[in-house]
């Protein structure tokens, strides 16, 4: 019925998208694992990564793939500043809370705060850059690579995919091997004990925030080159990212990576059989299945 090559092409595309979902989802799951915060503004850092890249490309006349990492660092910095200004006092309050109702209300407070931040940032982008989708051109988008089997993808997509993969692996190794990485994992598991053993938890929060948002911003910068930029692009991504986090298990890094690719793959396949309008639903169907059968995530919880 459907041509073999169409299916494979969609799957490959889906996997490439999956890399992006994983990159954004990983940051989200880290923030949840370490700070116990459901950051609804995460998508906005992805969006800002895209727009900052555009700003740099425009003023310096360079290529998004070169400016992307730079702008990502910028966004990361902004997020750390925001973290300090807005959230830092609240982490302490969240830790000291007693009773499940009080915890629920504090959590709600956090979520609402990030929602407010999200609204603010989206409108900021709207005001500064306007509502019309912007196309950012890159030398890499025009270079088409032909793969065996008669598939062709732009170099941009391929580079993005591999960069995403590399970053994820690098992050995994960072957390596993380095001292800071271990400190982050320790804080995620038991913040009180971590603090007692000399870890500066506030610094860890900043570092976690920085890594998470830089990753998301990087993804945004590259995706902006491939697709287009619009102020609400973060909102579309963040919902997907939350699904990734839930399917992978909240706080579980490897889980999110796996989940990101799984969802990308399933969407690719689903798009072929169900049509593009219902592609969105695929992610939710997977989420529902996971919540029903393995509520802690496909791989279970983790730091």
């Amino acid at each position, binding site marked *: 019925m459907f041509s073999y090559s169409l299916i494979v092409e969609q799957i490959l595309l889906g996997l490439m998208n999956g890399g992006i979902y994983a990159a954004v989802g990983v940051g989200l799951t880290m923030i949840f694992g370490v700070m116990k915060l459901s950051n609804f503004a995460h998508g906005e850092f992805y969006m800002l990564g895209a727009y900052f890249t555009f700003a740099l490309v425009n003023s310096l006349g360079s290529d998004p793939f070169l400016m992307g990492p730079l702008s990502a660092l910028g966004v990361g910095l902004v997020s750390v500043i925001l973290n300090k200004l807005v959230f830092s006092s609240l982490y302490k309050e969240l830790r000291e809370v*007693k*009773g499940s109702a009080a915890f629920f209300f504090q959590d709600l407070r956090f979520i609402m705060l990030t929602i407010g931040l999200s609204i603010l940032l989206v409108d900021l982008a709207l005001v500064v850059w306007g509502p019309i989708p912007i196309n950012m051109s890159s030398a890499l988008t025009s270079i088409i690579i032909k793969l065996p089997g008669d598939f062709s993808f732009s170099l941009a997509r391929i580079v993005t995919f591999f960069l995403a993969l590399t970053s994820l692996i690098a992050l995994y190794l960072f957390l596993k091997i380095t001292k800071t990485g271990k400190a982050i994992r320790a804080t995620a598991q038991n913040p009180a004990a971590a603090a007692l053993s000399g870890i500066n938890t506030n610094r860890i929060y900043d570092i976690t925030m920085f890594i998470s948002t830089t990753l998301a911003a990087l993804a945004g910068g590259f995706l902006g080159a491939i697709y287009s930029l619009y102020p609400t692009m973060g909102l579309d991504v963040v919902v997907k990212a939350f699904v990734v986090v839930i399917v992978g298990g909240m706080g579980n890094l490897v889980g999110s990576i796996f989940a990101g690719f799984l969802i990308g793959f399933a969407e690719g396949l689903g798009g072929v059989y169900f049509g593009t309008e219902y592609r969105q639903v695929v992610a939710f169907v997977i989420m529902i299945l996971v919540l029903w059968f393995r509520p802690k995530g496909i791989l279970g919880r983790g730091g």
Partner: protein
Amino acid sequence: MNDVSLNVKEHDIFGIIGPNGAGKTTLFNIITGFYKPDSGRILFNGVDITGKKPNEIAKLGITRTWQIVKPFLGMTVLDNVLVAIYVKKGILRGLSEHTAIEKAEEILEFVGLSHRKHVLSEALPQGERKRLEIARALATEPRVLMLDEPAGGLTNIEMDEIIEVVKKVRESKVTVVLIEHNMKVVMGLCDRVIALNYGKKIAEGTPEEVAKNEEVIKAYLGERFYVES
């Protein structure tokens, strides 16, 4: 938990002791339906309650309290007890509000918290919170009251108050099963005691018998410290 069985005599005060991690609270959780056992059955008065939900077990007459107290913090002391009465006596029909409040006040009087009726339970110190939890449990008119470390974290005065309350509970014909670390409490209150270690029963008998038991002493102090007498 490994092959633990207990027989509790009605109207007794039955104690469960054992070092940390021995499985005492786990046992509580299994009996009251918060955990599911992998094998075995729990019989209450001949009725199989294995696998039932905690609220069903509570309705059948077993109510528990918590090692770390769980009052309904946002509610007053009176309301904490009232809610339990509503659940017991019926939400739609059943008691009139007036009678329900009377009953609640009676129970508060019983545990000595009448003077704190309208205080938010959040404001209570540990000892009073523990008594409130017992009051709330009593409001469900249980046949068995299971207390998880009622004396935990209390000052000496508070401990004496709790002991008094538990004695009064037994007098009112309610069977009590309690987990306790504090030997003074165990000795002073319990009719029979069972000792657990690593999820298995290692001794059973009167408090005096169990306290002298070789295995029990080893469990608490460690093999090295056991000296043959």
